[in-house]
């Protein structure tokens, strides 16, 4: 009788576990190191154009933050603050921008490269913001925000144009696929869009007029085919992200080591020393985090205990 009860308990537990596993699959979960926004961004890194778009966008965001950071530093210098720490962060952002520039969009590791470098950019931006906020009161910080908000840079504008060209190339390929699904190819519209003679909205209006004349069944066919492709890409991106998470901390440690080496070329020695010191502290924190992680893993099963300090979220 006792044996029977045990078997019944095991069976009920199995049934409950099945439901729990199923419920978990349906959720759009945030990875320990990669936020949901980044997971969505890597969905287009299925070819070199998508990878190129994301790397250029990342380069632009870093460049813009460096320019704003430099303006913030000069504002603080005018007010007599010591800015060595902030300059060290900017110097590291500059090294990071070079890493983004040298990243190969054709690499099979493009997703991993993008996730890693974006994570570093978020971390450095956050450190800079927090350091500025420690120095300034809210009113002065707001004054500084206003000063840097409307800054225009030729470099950023040039990058914006390159990004727009790459996005047009990406969208051209997408339009080829979309017209293929629709079954009515319009090469001239695609060429006009690619050449910048018509906008994305104008292309959409033309497609919309076409779709409007379709039967309910055809609309369903187009809708479901496009939806299936989107789901396929989402699943693929999720798998990539899971792979990338595996050695996240080790890769970060290697990048920081390389960056300490690259810091040798920084001319300003106090800034160089500060930067090397900051990177060393972060590397030590990483090692401490890894040890803590393995301790947690051995004592608490089922809880990854991931160090969220380094997570991709801003």
């Amino acid at each position, binding site marked *: *009788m006792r044996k*029977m009860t045990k*078997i*019944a308990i095991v*069976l*009920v537990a199995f*049934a409950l576990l*099945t*439901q729990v596993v*199923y419920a978990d699959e*349906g959720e759009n979960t945030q990875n320990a190191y990669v936020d949901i*926004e980044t997971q969505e961004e890597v969905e*287009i890194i299925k070819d070199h154009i998508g990878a190129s*778009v994301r790397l250029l*966008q*990342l380069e*632009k*965001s*870093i460049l813009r*933050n460096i320019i*704003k*950071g430099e303006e*913030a530093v000069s504002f603080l210098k005018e007010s007599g603050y010591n800015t060595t720490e902030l300059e060290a962060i900017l110097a590291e952002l500059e090294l990071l921008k070079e890493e983004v520039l040298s990243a190969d969009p054709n690499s099979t590791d493009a997703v991993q490269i993008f996730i890693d470098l*974006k994570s570093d*950019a*978020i971390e450095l*931006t956050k450190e800079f*913001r927090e350091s*500025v*906020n420690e120095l300034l009161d809210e009113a002065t*910080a707001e004054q500084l*925000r206003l000063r*840097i908000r409307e800054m225009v840079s030729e470099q950023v504008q040039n990058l914006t144009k390159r*990004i*727009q060209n790459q*996005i*047009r190339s990406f*969208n051209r390929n*997408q339009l080829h*696929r*979309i017209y293929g699904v629709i079954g009515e190819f319009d090469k001239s519209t695609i060429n006009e869009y690619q050449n910048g003679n018509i906008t*994305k909205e104008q292309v*959409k209006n033309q*497609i*919309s007029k076409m*779709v*409007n004349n379709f039967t*309910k*069944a055809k*609309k*369903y066919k*187009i*809708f*479901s085919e*496009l*939806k*299936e*492709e*989107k*789901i396929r890409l989402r699943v693929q991106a999720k798998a990539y992200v899971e792979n990338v998470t595996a050695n996240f901390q080790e890769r970060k440690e290697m990048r920081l080591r390389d960056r300490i080496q690259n810091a040798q070329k920084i001319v300003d020695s106090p800034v160089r020393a500060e930067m090397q010191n900051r990177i060393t502290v972060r590397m030590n924190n990483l090692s401490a985090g890894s040890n803590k992680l393995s301790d947690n893993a051995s004592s608490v099963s089922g809880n990854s205990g991931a160090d969220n300090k380094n997570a991709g979220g801003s």
Partner: protein
Amino acid sequence: MNKKIIGIVFGAIVIISSVFLFYNYAENSKDDIGSEDQDYTTDDVMDEIDGSLLGEDDEVEIGEMV
């Protein structure tokens, strides 16, 4: 007799779990892709097309410096 009862309980659990999983799977699939009976408008199709294209002003957000 006892073995029979265990067999019936086990069978019932497996069948109920399978039915529940299949029902949920079918419902989710309907939510994701829908069915042909559903009335698809041009807007539904255009939403999917819009989702397949990138916005030319899209940005990668890394946060603000101040």
